[in-house]
């Protein structure tokens, strides 16, 4: 009897506690959201997800469990992978490397039941976007950014294989995808941060993004490539701007994924120096130029040093690319934009392509697997001839 009572207390306590707190805070109980809309499969799924997300019991006990697992058993859930010496890796990024090939048949059918709208094959969307950009007078250049696990395998815990041979683990389908894209007329440039597990540090210890130095190297490489391929004329690097170092200390975006907070054994802060790009005369931070003929579509790899979340401002990929190109850039940048949202912005506002002759599309390479790739045709294209 006592056994039954204790179990029932456990079963009822979670929802009752939640309800009591919500009522005490004069909030509408979240469980009532069930009745807000006509139920559909999607709305019920959303309701269920929300109910779990806001659960106070889940937030506290779930987080404590996650921390305990990470500290004691080296496992931090699906979003976070624990490396060595406090290095953390983004789970989806690592799974991009180890998962099935981007174009594998198994991937094409994997989402049918759970996410019927998920489009796993990126090719049609990229080809269509490339064609639309071309018709608007702009050349599209893809800039997939390698995942941390591809560049810092030692820190992930990989040992023997790296020293024995050049190491550049990538998704098994990447080369085929790039070959097909290039054969279809799409420009792809893959910044090569690490030659062969050379032991250098290119990524932040507890952040999924690159170091300021690696980012600057990539910006310089991209600028050189654009000039070498004659997409742009050589400019004067840094014209009108100056760089100003700023020292910052933070952990990054990854500890939160494993509920690792300050005080945890695995939580480590890191101090870095970013180079802010400032106007030489006014001292104001670099700002995008909507009228520039180069448009940069980008995700958090561009925003990480300019969005003021963890790592300061005015020192991101857009700023440094602009510096190395010696010209202004128009940008559509957002954290969590992946490869989809920035493109969707262009589709929503086709006038953003007006006067552009080059569209640089930077995204984390993991998005080739993690994200859905619906074809998004650009509706009313700006008159051609406004660009190149």
């Amino acid at each position, binding site marked *: 009897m006592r056994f039954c009572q204790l179990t029932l207390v456990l079963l009822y306590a979670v929802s009752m506690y939640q309800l009591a707190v919500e009522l005490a805070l004069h909030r509408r109980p979240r469980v009532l959201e069930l009745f807000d809309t006509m139920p559909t*499969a999607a709305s019920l799924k959303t309701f269920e997800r929300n109910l779990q997300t806001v659960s106070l*019991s889940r937030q506290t006990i779930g987080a404590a*469990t996650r921390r305990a697992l990470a500290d004691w058993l080296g496992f931090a859930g*699906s979003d976070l*992978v624990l490396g060595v010496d406090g290095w953390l890796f983004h789970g989806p990024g690592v799974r991009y490397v180890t998962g099935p090939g981007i174009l594998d048949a198994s991937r094409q059918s994997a989402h049918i039941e759970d996410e*019927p709208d998920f489009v796993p094959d990126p090719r049609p969307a990229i080809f269509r976007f490339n064609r639309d950009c071309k018709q608007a007078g702009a050349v599209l250049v893809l800039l997939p950014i390698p995942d941390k696990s591809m560049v810092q395998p030692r820190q992930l815990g990989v040992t023997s294989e790296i020293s024995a041979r050049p190491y550049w683990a990538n998704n098994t389908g990447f080369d085929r995808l790039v070959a097909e894209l290039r054969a279809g007329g799409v420009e792809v440039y893959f910044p090569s941060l690490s030659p062969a597990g050379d032991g250098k540090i290119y990524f932040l210890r507890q952040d999924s993004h690159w170091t300021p130095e690696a980012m600057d190297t990539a910006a310089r490489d991209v600028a050189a490539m654009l000039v070498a391929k004659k997409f742009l004329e050589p400019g004067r690097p840094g014209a009108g701007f100056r760089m100003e170092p700023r020292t910052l200390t933070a952990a990054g975006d990854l500890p939160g994924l494993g509920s690792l907070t300050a005080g945890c054994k695995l939580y480590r802060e890191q101090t870095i120096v970013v180079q802010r790009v400032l106007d030489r005369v006014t001292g104001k931070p670099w700002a995008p130029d909507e009228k520039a003929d180069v448009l940069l579509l980008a995700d958090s790899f561009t925003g990480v040093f300019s969005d003021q979340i963890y790592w300061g401002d005015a020192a991101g990929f857009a700023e440094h690319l602009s510096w190395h190109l010696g010209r202004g850039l128009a940008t559509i940048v957002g954290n969590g934009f992946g490869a989809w949202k920035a493109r969707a912005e262009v589709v929503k506002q086709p006038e953003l392509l007006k006067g552009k002759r080059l569209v640089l599309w930077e995204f984390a390479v993991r998005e080739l697997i993690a994200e859905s790739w619906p074809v998004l045709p650009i509706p009313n294209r700006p008159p051609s001839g406004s660009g190149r």
Partner: protein
Amino acid sequence: MVFTTHLFVFYFLPLTLLVYYFEPKRLRTLTLVLVSYLFYAWASPAWALLMFFSTVVDYVCGLVLVRLSGLPDEDGQLAVLPRGEPRSPGQTIALAVSIASNVLLLGFFKYFDFAVANLNQLLDWTGNGSHALQFIHVALPVGISFYTFQSMSYAIDVYRGDARAMRSLVDFCCFETLYPHLVAGPIVRYSVLADQIRERSHSWEKFARGIAFFSCGMAKKILIANPLGAVADQMFGNSGLRCGDSWYGLFSYSFQIYFDFSGYSDMAVCLGLMIWFCLIKNFDSPYCADSITDFWRRWHISLSTWLRDYLYVPLGGNRLGPRRTYVNLMVVMLIGGLWHGASWNFVIWGAFHGFMLALERYQGKTSAYSRLPRSQRVGATFLLASLAWVFFRAETLGGALTYLAMLLGFCHPCAASPVRAVLVYTPFHLIVFTVAALLVWTAPQSWDFTRDLSRPKMGFLLALLAMSVSMMWTQSSNPFLYFRF
């Protein structure tokens, strides 16, 4: 809805119990029907309509079967048809309608695209590729394989005179839709539930045992099946695995599917007990089997007995000579394989088991390795069952063959192999793998473990439940494997 979710454990289940225990007795069956439909409709409301249609067809067929016999009611209940007597053409038609409606429903939703794909392939081979048929890409309603089989058992049992037809539609809906076992079994025959639907009673012993089953089932799914599933997911679908990794992935999947499905079955039994129903045992330590014949006495018992009673025996069973027995075993296992999914992989999986059963039957119901010590026979059976799982788990036939090649060390490891190792050889995964192996070969199965609940055992089960819930809150949505069948 999935049993191991926040919504089910902390909202659906407590609310259902609250209403069920405090309402008048006469409303309880109706309540169960309503909550079962809510439970089922959660995945897709439209599917509930489909299930209701199927239920009504079978209910009407059952009534017609009895009415056409002209037998009077017995104590206010419909008469049981006399066994062994010939049935009228009308009754045979009623049975055929019930079976056909279920088979067509299952065939359309589960096998239509598969048939189209194969026909198109055939057209292609014969140079008629331009006449290719269109796929319909219809989503498979959750649990349809289970509830259609269950429905068929009703009409067949009534027709044979093995069970009494139901007069009340609500009672019949309760049989068809009872949420604890609706989505992934066990496949409970009508004769098991019929009396319980009419009369059932509560006891705290039953409830306590239900909780014990719940703790065991939840722990199996959350603490073992899900982590090992992550390992198996890393391995299957990828080429270029190291030989050792592929074996680790295969055994992880063997453990995953057992703990996942038997966990679900335990939870189904628990939820049944909480609402005063006794369901049936679906697993009996299957990896302790010492032959494939023994394995099928222990694995998914409700399906294997269903296939035996409604397919193997009507086909003639072992009554028509040895050769026909082997054919019957093959046919039954092929259909059993196809029941799991519309793919050649499942057909091959079924064919493998059918062949092994026929072979063992040929040898007098013993395995080819029957002279080995028991521990080695168990190991060999586990190995054979695991190798068959390759076809069950791989997405494509090519994927299965590649995986077998990797098991034999015929593939060159890809550069990502050491990265993959970091993901799957964490202390956590290795501990779970070891615990799974220990439980499989040394622990009692849930029915025995929950029989006598001592105080320390109850404390252990409560701790297990708390641990499972805590762990559940760290995991993303992870439905049971058998939901897709």
